[in-house]
């Protein structure tokens, strides 16, 4: 029998006992709906988490460190590749080499130091870091009050809102509770004085240098809501100055004393540089290329690997719970079809008597199981989507009451829709396996004797 005929006959049979078949299909729908609901919750949470990370603006950055600097992020990197002593210095030449790796947009040294910043003659200790002009377009300045630096060497400063609160003498309970507009208002346009130590080589002997103390007045131009330096963990800065300015200051770095023992010239050696990549998708390839140059690398993608593993496990478990409902539904299909065989014994006998082969009968039952699965899959996906919308809505009502902005914790990607429908179809066909072969083996003489 041709496939089309099987489907047509199957559709007719499904219509014949419409109540029972709809209930079975409903069972599949509920199973698929719970699967879709569980998985899209998992995916939604995952997307929420990665959106948060993406907003940090560091998804396209790679931190490059010298192997000489044993403070590595990754034990594995220390064990492979050239020995620390043979690896190249992270100096201006290395910076150019890294800049030439395809996909790298810019390379800037990561300059940061802990220093004293005075505001209204009160000293505050904080980490100061350079900020390249290109990060102006980054998402991490979303919600910033004021504006970005006017030029790459302007005597201007952008501060993080928690530092702004500190300058104003406010007690900080948690970064989330600080209203950025509130703390920015009295500070924008005001002047702070930053103290720093300049490292100066002493001419003939490159291994020694002197340190000169300076003070520099800077104007507060912006207060950030987010944490642009969040990747640094405990070393993250709360005060930012333009990158060109900080480079020209030649500030004393924490590692300078350690590096002084080596064969260094008067050009600076950086503890680490940041390579910005044209897109997050290229990070992996660029990281590999930089590793080949003999440096250690770290990117946020490495950090998200463990997060992705967590979500993979979460999705797996949510999927298993969702599948349980589908398993119950597939038992429903088996039951319905076995009942249908008993009910249609005679009909199967007649079909065999007029020339239906075993495979014709089998195909007919398969088509019925598949049709129920397909229909159940489609209805279930719609149902799951609706359930998800309701949960999302409920969550946002709750979040609003608690004073949080609404979040999108729900996501039904196209692959999930296709996958759920396909999965329901395959599970139904598997459920139809036993009833179909039982129907195909039915003895026509026995079946026709039934009166």
């Amino acid at each position, binding site marked *: *029998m*041709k496939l*089309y*005929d099987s489907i047509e*006959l199957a559709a*007719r*049979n499904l219509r*014949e006992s419409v109540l029972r078949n709809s209930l079975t299909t409903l069972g599949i729908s509920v199973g698929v709906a719970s699967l879709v609901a569980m998985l899209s919750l998992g995916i939604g949470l995952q997307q929420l988490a990665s959106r948060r990370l993406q907003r940090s603006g560091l998804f396209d950055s790679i931190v490059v460190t010298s192997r000489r600097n044993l403070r590595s992020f990754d034990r594995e990197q220390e064990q492979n590749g050239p020995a620390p002593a043979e690896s190249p210095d992270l100096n201006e030449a290395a910076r150019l080499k890294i800049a030439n790796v395809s996909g790298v947009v810019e390379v800037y040294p990561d300059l940061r130091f802990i220093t004293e910043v005075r505001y209204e003659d009160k000293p505050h200790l904080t980490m100061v870091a350079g900020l390249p002009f290109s990060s102006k377009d980054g998402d991490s300045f979303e919600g910033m009050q004021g504006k970005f630096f006017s030029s790459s060497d302007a005597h201007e400063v952008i501060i993080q809102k928690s530092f702004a609160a500190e300058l104003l003498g406010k007690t900080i309970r948690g970064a989330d509770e600080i209203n950025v507009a509130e703390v920015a208002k009295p500070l924008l346009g005001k002047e702070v004085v930053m103290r720093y130590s300049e490292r100066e080589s002493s001419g003939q002997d490159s291994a020694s240098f002197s340190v000169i103390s300076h003070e520099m007045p800077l104007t507060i131009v912006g207060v950030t809501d987010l944490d642009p330096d969040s990747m640094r963990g405990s070393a993250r800065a709360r005060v930012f100055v333009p990158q060109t300015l900080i480079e020209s200051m030649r500030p004393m770095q924490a590692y300078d004393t350690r590096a002084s023992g080596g064969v260094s010239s008067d050009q600076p050696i950086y503890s680490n540089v940041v390579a910005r990549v044209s897109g997050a998708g290229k990070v992996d390839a660029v990281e590999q290329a930089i590793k080949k140059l003999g440096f250690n690398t770290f990117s946020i993608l490495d950090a998200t690997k463990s997060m992705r593993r967590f979500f993979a496990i979460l999705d797996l478990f949510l999927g298993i719970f969702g599948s349980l409902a589908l398993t119950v539904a597939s038992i429903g299909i088996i039951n319905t079809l076995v009942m249908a065989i008993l009910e249609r014994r*005679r*009909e199967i*006998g*007649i*079909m*065999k*008597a*007029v*020339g*239906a*082969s*075993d*495979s*014709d009968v089998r195909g007919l039952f398969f088509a019925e199981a598949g049709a129920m699965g397909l229909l159940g899959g489609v209805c279930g996906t719609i149902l799951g989507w609706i359930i998800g919308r309701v949960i999302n809505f409920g969550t946002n009502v709750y979040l609003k009451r608690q004073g949080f902005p609404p979040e999108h914790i729900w996501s039904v990607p196209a692959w999930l829709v296709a996958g759920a429908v396909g999965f329901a179809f395959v599970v139904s066909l598997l459920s139809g396996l036993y009833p179909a072969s039982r129907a195909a083996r039915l003895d*026509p*003489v026995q079946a*026709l004797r039934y*009166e």
Partner: protein
Amino acid sequence: MGSATIRAVDGITLQIAAGEFVALLGASGSGKSSLLNLLAGLDSPSSGSVIVEGQSLAGLSREQLAKYRRHTVGMVFQSFNLIPSMSVLENVELPLRFAEVERTRRAAMASSALERVGLSGRLHHRPIELSGGEQQRVAMARALINQPHILLADEPTGNLDSRTGTEVMELIRHLNESLKMTVVLVTHERDLAEKYANRLIFLADGKMVADQANTTTTIAGAKS
């Protein structure tokens, strides 16, 4: 359940020539329907063989047996065995589906088959809306749709009154005579067998007790 073997058909040796009209006679339980099922390829003998058109049915696969039932034999039953959920036309079309005949040709073939049995006006009725005689004629149309060489009829008039029974039997005779179709008729009515068949085979307890040519000439118009 007892495990005693019941021999429904036991030691029957029988040869039916093409174009013959054979009646299998016997009381109920004599094995005549079992013999018909063996000829139809619905059942297979535990020993011995059934050879149709030079081919042993025992040597055929299940798939080939289905093909044999589809193209070589047509069956008519006492209880008509139409599928109640299908219309008259769809019932007749059913064997064409299994024979994978093009959809476009099926309806035309089925309606012309129904025309031949005199049922052209009721194509879209359900079997239950038809009289017994009409239902049996639908079953005849279905049996003949794939142009089989052999018609196997199992008590075709058993559920019909005498007038409609005669109509159906006349139709069978017409097929036998005009199309040279081999007919094997199972019945317990001796009168009917003598009226239409040209060979009578008597069965009792699964064994053949008599095999004789029909010499009865008393019924008018029985023989042309």
